[in-house]
């Protein structure tokens, strides 16, 4: 399944890049986060609570940076996790475009979801992903604003 989205952040591209390059900052914005640890090479492992329809429980997930290109402001992340009888893995491409008054954050995720979670209809999953992403970016926006103040 492919998911994609765009978001405009009222911060400078460099600030956004610095923020998202710090896994410990981004991870704290993940909704439902219960615990996490950051390891060597920006690898993050985390325990996250999920609730999609009748499926509720915690996921053990990890992310690692596959590619990071500061010059072009692009990055590729690999995510994987399992829980509540289901599993997922994803490759996420990120790109930051500089705008006159901020930064455009573009993301594209190629996600494989397995198990009961994967059997949910795509619109249901999309709705959940959308909600999570909105919450994540709201948090990032908030943190960026606070840090610039």
């Amino acid at each position: 399944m492919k998911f994609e989205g765009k978001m405009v952040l009222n911060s400078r591209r460099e600030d956004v890049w610095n923020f998202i390059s710090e896994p410990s900052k981004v991870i704290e914005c993940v909704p439902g986060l219960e615990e996490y640890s950051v390891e060597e090479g920006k690898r993050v492992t985390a325990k996250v609570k999920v609730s999609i329809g009748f499926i509720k429980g915690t996921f053990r997930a990890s992310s690692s940076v596959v590619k990071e290109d500061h010059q072009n402001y692009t990055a590729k992340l690999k995510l994987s996790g399992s829980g509540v009888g289901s599993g997922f893995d994803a490759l996420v491409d990120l790109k930051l475009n500089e705008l006159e008054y901020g930064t455009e954050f573009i993301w594209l995720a190629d996600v494989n979801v397995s198990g009961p979670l994967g059997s949910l209809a795509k619109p249901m999953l999309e709705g959940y992903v959308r909600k999570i992403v909105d919450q994540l970016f709201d948090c990032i926006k908030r943190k960026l604003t606070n840090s610039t103040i």
Partner: protein
Amino acid sequence: MTFKYIGRPVPPQDGFYKVTGTAQYTLDVELPGMLYAKLVTSTVPHAKIKKIDVSKALQVPGVVKVVVGKDFPYRVGMYAGDRDLLAIDKVRWVGHPVAAVLAESLEAAEKAIDLVDVEYEELPTVFDPLEALSPDAPLIHEKMEEYRHSPAFRPIPGTNIANKFTLVKGDVEKGFREADVIIEEKFYIPHVSHCFMEVHNVVAHYHLDGTVEIWTSWQNVAPIRQIMALSLGIPHNKIIVKIPYVGGGFGGKAGLGWEALVAILSKEAGYRPVKLVLSRKEQFTSAAVREGFYGFAKAGFKKDGRFIAYDVKFILDAGAYADYTVNVGRAVGYSADGCYEIPNIRVESLTVYTNKIPTTALRGFGYPESHWVLEQIMDKAAEKLGIDPAELRKINLVKPGISETCTGERLREDAGNPQKVLEVLLEEIGWGKPSEKPREPWKIRSKGLALFVKGPAQPPNASASAILKFNEDASIDLLIATGNFGQGTVTALMQIVAEEFGLPLEKIRVDYIRDTHKSAYTWQTVGSRGLFTDGIAILNAIEDAKKQIFKIASEVLRCPEDHLELVDGEVRVKGKPWEKIPLQDIVMGYTYPNGNSIGGPVIGRGVFMSTHTTYLDPETGQGNPTIFHTFGGTAVEIEVNLLTGEVEVLKGVQVLDLGKVINPLLVEQQVNGGFLMGLSIGLYEQIKFDERGWVVNPNFTNYYLIRIKDIPKQIIWKTVETPQSDGPYGARGVGELTMIGVAPAIANAIYRALRVKLNELPMSPENIWKALREQRPEIVDEALKKFLEFKKMVEVKK
């Protein structure tokens, strides 16, 4: 002959303990210092294990140890010997146990399993057994040649074939050349779960002196001991296996279990007892389930209805491990001919590894699969030949005493009366009489039938034994190993003892805890064999005890032994009932008034050993595989909603030739249970996998099981009693076969009414509706028209 206990509807004797809550299950076993185990399972279907990091898990308070497969690289198993205790170098399915956490509490163990990090290097996968047969398919077991397998099976190293079974009788090609009508069909059955109430659970305690004590929710004690002895190298007398009450088995607790793993965990934990309890989700994803199945059949008939050629190929999707399924593959192969005499037959049955859940036995053990194919072929052939399906069956039924099965076994004269079974079946379902018209015109009613035969799939030397000890008051302790997991066999066995000694049932005691040290031996309680094999062993033990009793009594009564009889708990001289001694005066030895004594405590022992069964020829499948054949038939009257695809069974009939019914109440319970299980698997059940091998419905919300509303209004059963001379009172087994005919009978009823083929299970509303739409769209359109007219009419009336 009139009996006091045999043939009586005696209620199951363990019912008291169950309804009063005093029955103890393995789940109730708690030992001092016991640890709890939880399994870390694979999240990928096929991969090399690169690294397992247990450091974070060990930091959880209460965690004692985390063990991984490399710590104990044993191979375990009964038939294929292919299984690891925990994944050693690679994982082979999503759900494969990779590591085990041992903790002081279940909560700590559950928390810690999430913290074990496993790094995988993914390998190419194969989920379909047909693709797994391709030479280019990824190999799931690279070192199959090293596995210690039973000589009855033929694994093919270098392929994904765990067992190849072949059978040839007659000349199939010649048969097809001579056939007037040829039918070719493909069939499919998905994986299903056993859905017993009590999930797999084990407690093991490895003692410092090397003795291993096991408590487990399993069907049989002896095979656990055997598997552990052969696989782990522990002497048999150092392994004590105890099975308390068990909440259902259905074959899913008969093969390889978790006992060896938990025993090793106990040792690894510093000789502390360990308990492992699977969750329902783990039961679906990490424990063995019933295999998936493909059947490819070609059948040739003469115009007059004679079935003269049958060429059939079965492919069993065994999943990642096939330890018990190789025997299912063998049984499905040699039961291919069902109840019919087919002179030319060729069978190939391949048990194939894939990257799915491992598989095992389920009630019926391959026979539901072979009959799903064959019994539908019969109806399709009947249609082509223009012969009534019942008549076609009558033409081809085996004739005991004359006919040979496909394995070349001549059926003994007293093997049963399949003709009579069919006659009774037709009469009870009202074959030939039209069904009543349903009230709603978008529904149709129809009748269908299927015949079947079943014998236990067991090695030729599978034996049983019984020990019978008298107490001072002439009550009896009966020591048997017969599994007691809800089927009621033990009650029937107690009835035999009560009958033979003329004692009230209350005087017979069976310990419901099976124990390898205290119970007698029986190979296994599977395949509907318990009453037959253990019943014979008990009868032999009774005869042995009677000899001892009559020897003492003949001295006391001064009468030859053959002039004595046992009546109502007394030894009497035949024809002189006043010359007698009560049993309690003899069974511990007889003491004369002056104190002189003779005899001693009476202990009877008896065994069962089949003398006519053989291994099957590895190339031709010829030989005698089974100790009896129970013939039976199922007929149904159904109503199909053409708009929704829903099937309602209005009436179900089961007719069985049981030889002799020992307990009609238990048979009725088996018939009801088997019919409903057959209905559930026939109409609803299916483990669904996604394209990455994950189970998407590992719970009872998404895995649809039969509900109260689905139960037929009427299930009736009849027995034909053709006693088998060497069976206990002539009886044969009943348990599994009550579900074999249900699904094909429903499919045949649908086909008769609609000419819609349903060669795939389950026949769910969705699948029936889809089949209707694809094969006969005009029927659905017509039904919709009728529905709209009916609705309009109702509205006008309002």
